[in-house]
């Protein structure tokens, strides 16, 4: 049976007029602005406001076209809701004006002189084109817009790649293609990144982690480059203005308000290429800063709800940026959860990396909670159930929770100890063999009782030296950031290989290449989830700057000329990634335990030194070998070869005795970083058998990867 005649919906009729607009009491949920039959429904929360107005602008107009006060009967609890009819949603910008007390001691900072952006705005205008000088006197700089959800996703479904099988590539939407050498039609945009998908496929990564894409203001940085006097931008974007809105300035079509479509298209096309999308999200603070910061949204709507305040009403500063989001307040929890659900359901995002996530387990008074409700809720939420949740498990106020982040069996962590251990070992520091072994085995000391994929392993990330700079600089060189080189970390564990900065010496350059390969080799054969910083595969440099947050220029941008110039390193990385994909024994879910669990005659992981089966854990040792038994791959569920990784961080070469293999099998050479290209790197599956079956001569500062499998007969 079908309904022959569609009746007009009763709720599509206005009940009264306010300010000349036909309106009716709105629906409190969902928050924000949503098209409904005949009009747009607006809903906003404020507990302490005494009056609330809906402020309407025609697109781009300097002054509002109307202000509609919510009558008392349009308020339910602390939510103001109103449906306004006959609006031209395409040509509309809206905000709120909240009146209430200004008394910082009680946490109230209402200012009826401000037009406030909607925290739930799904589209924001005002910074539509990256870097374009705005009208600084605009009464409403970040303007909420109404978004239509009419994107055609086709048959896009989540890829559902098991976390342990991921190879994550951390990149910046703008920086990836902004460089003139990128050759894309719209440099520095979602569309530009889309054009580079074939490169990502060739590289072999199956997950991109994007630096913040929620709307932020790249012009909120007051500093200038001391050498050039040029404006420094907030290039990284860890200063969110609007959590539900994709950054318009990252869209070639931002000026048309099409950023949501352009970004969704990027996600859809990445999925088609087998690549998941993880977003770096910043819920620990907002762009409103401290008492002296701008009032954009939260502060003016309900300061005491959204921010952690001291008993005196001042802002707690656990984020190091002036304010701290009150994440475990029930209203804010709901905000964070709604936001993540929105990105998963509307943008098909596969996972999130939470910036300074330790803040998310602090109570409203700043105390770390043993069972923080927000984290528990995210871990068990039905919509987020299969997304990847990755914590940066520390904050700027000394709460360091690597290995101890409340995880509910769901959360992974950026493993900062992995980064430091690999750097220090490869640099040649003594006393680190045992430490490195633990890190390569998936850090069971930190993540025992959890799966190995709890550990996101990385050597470099956006924050800190690039891989090339890690082997080219002993010290940071951040003068261009305008803070006399005081900013940025000092604990880099870097070694310049004999000369600070670019070097003309072939010896120094060769050593640097080898050291980069050594670290990539360790990263991609370690248990856990490897993350690569974009550009490290081609030796991208920031000239020693280890805090490029404000460098929107060649210093940070991916120079595509390096793809050719450093083709050798790129090929090495490509093949290493392919090697990881080809060998499930490296991607086993459970931590290896060092015993034979499948009756293969070999432990799942075994340790070796210069002598087979005789690892040297002593303080002066700089050599270690590990063997993974292929019969243990994925808990014995799939067949794999044996894999041996020998690492020599010593400045002298060593003869390594190799562990014996079952009858009929032999060691084959996949990679040796001490051999000049094209030697020392095989195609995956086409490795050649070693001439000397039981020994391997490994050069100084080098790494070898061998595959143990059946001898080719005939």
């Amino acid at each position, binding site marked *: 049976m079908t309904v022959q005649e569609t009746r007009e919906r009763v709720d599509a009729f206005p009940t009264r007029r306010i300010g000349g607009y036909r309106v009716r009491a709105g629906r409190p949920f969902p928050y924000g602005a949503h098209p409904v039959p005949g009009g747009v429904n607006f809903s906003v929360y404020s507990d302490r406001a005494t009056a609330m107005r809906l402020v309407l602008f025609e697109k781009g107009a300097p002054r509002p076209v109307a202000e509609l006060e919510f009558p008392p009967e349009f308020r339910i609890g602390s939510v103001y809701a109103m449906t306004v009819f006959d609006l*031209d949603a*395409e*040509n509309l910008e809206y905000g709120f004006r909240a009146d209430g007390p200004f008394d910082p001691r009680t946490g109230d900072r209402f200012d009826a002189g401000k037009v406030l952006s909607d925290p739930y705005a799904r589209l924001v205008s005002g910074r539509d084109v990256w870097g374009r000088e705005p009208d600084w006197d605009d009464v409403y700089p970040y303007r909420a817009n109404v978004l*239509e959800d*009419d*994107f*055609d996703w*086709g048959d896009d479904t989540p890829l559902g790649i098991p976390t342990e099988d991921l190879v994550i590539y951390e990149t910046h939407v703008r920086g990836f293609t902004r460089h003139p050498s990128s050759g894309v*039609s*719209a440099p520095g*945009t979602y*569309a530009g990144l*889309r054009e580079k998908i074939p490169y990502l496929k060739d590289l072999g990564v199956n997950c991109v982690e994007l630096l913040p894409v929620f709307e932020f203001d790249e012009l909120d940085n007051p500093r200038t480059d001391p050498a050039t006097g040029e404006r420094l931008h907030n290039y990284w974007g860890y200063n969110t203005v609007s959590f539900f809105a994709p950054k318009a300035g990252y*869209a*070639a*079509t931002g000026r*048309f*308000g*099409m950023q949501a*479509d*352009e970004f*969704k*298209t*990027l996600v*859809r*096309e990445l999925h088609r290429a087998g690549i998941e999308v993880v977003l770096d999200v910043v819920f620990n603070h907002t762009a409103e800063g401290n008492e002296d910061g701008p009032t954009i949204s939260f502060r003016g709507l309900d300061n005491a709800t959204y921010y952690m305040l001291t008993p005196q009403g001042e802002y707690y500063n656990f984020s190091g940026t002036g304010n701290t989001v009150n994440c475990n307040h029930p209203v804010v929890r709901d905000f964070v959860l709604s936001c993540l659900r929105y990105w998963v359901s509307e943008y098909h995002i596969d996972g999130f990396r939470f910036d300074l996530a330790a803040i998310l387990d602090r109570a409203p008074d700043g105390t770390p909670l043993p069972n923080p409700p927000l984290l528990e809720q995210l871990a068990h939420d039905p919509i987020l159930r299969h997304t990847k949740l990755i914590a940066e498990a520390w904050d700027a106020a000394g709460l360091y929770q690597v290995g101890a982040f409340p995880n509910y069996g769901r959360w992974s962590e950026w493993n900062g100890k992995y980064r430091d251990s690999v750097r220090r070992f490869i640099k040649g520091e003594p006393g680190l063999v045992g430490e490195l072994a633990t890190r390569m085995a998936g850090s069971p000391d930190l993540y025992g009782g959890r799966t190995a994929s709890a550990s996101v392993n990385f050597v470099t990330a956006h924050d800190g030296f690039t891989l090339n700079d890690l082997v080219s600089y002993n010290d940071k060189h951040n003068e261009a950031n305008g803070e006399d080189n005081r900013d940025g970390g000092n604990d880099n564990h870097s070694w310049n290989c004999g000369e600070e900065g670019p070097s003309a010496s072939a010896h120094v350059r060769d050593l640097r290449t080898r050291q980069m390969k050594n670290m990539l080799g360790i990263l991609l054969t370690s248990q856990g989830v490897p993350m690569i910083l974009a550009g490290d595969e081609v030796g991208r440099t920031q000239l020693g700057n280890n805090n490029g947050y404000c460098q929107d220029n060649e210093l940070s941008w991916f120079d595509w000329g390096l793809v050719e110039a450093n083709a050798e390193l790129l090929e090495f990385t490509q093949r290493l990634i392919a090697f990881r994909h080809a060998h499930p024994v490296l991607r086993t879910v459970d931590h290896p335990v060092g015993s034979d669990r499948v009756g293969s005659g070999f432990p799942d992981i075994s340790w070796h030194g210069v002598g087979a089966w005789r690892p040297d854990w002593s303080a002066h040792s700089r050599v270690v070998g590990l063997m993974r038994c292929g019969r243990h791959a994925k808990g014995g569920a799939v067949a794999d070869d044996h894999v041996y990784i020998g690492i020599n961080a010593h400045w002298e070469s060593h003869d390594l005795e190799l562990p014996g293999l079952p009858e009929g099998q032999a060691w084959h050479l996949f990679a040796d970083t001490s051999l000049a290209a094209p030697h020392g790197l095989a195609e995956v599956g086409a490795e050649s058998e070693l001439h000397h079956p039981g020994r391997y001569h490994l050069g100084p500062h080098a790494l070898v990867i061998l595959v143990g499998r059946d001898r080719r007969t005939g």
Partner: protein
Amino acid sequence: MSFDGTLSVSEGIATIEVKGELDASTAPRFHDLVDQAAEQGAVRLEIDARHLGFLASAGLRSLVFARQKMGDEVRIAVIGATEPVSRTIRLAGFDHSIELIDA
């Protein structure tokens, strides 16, 4: 702002010729033409954009509207769009659901 749209249907192919500027104020007229084309059971919709000078966000949104109004089996082509117009369509990602054809 001027806009002029005309619909002609021949052998299952609907052609909408658009002239002038397609934006928020003129998009409803374009939508009416798409509605009519759908009602007449067109199996292909051609949008003759040779004389379309400007495509605002509402105009882009109209292409989404046309795509969804016409149903999956109907092919939609934008013909002869100027470089700025076709570039915008490509960057937004609509060229996957809509054909772009040179005049």
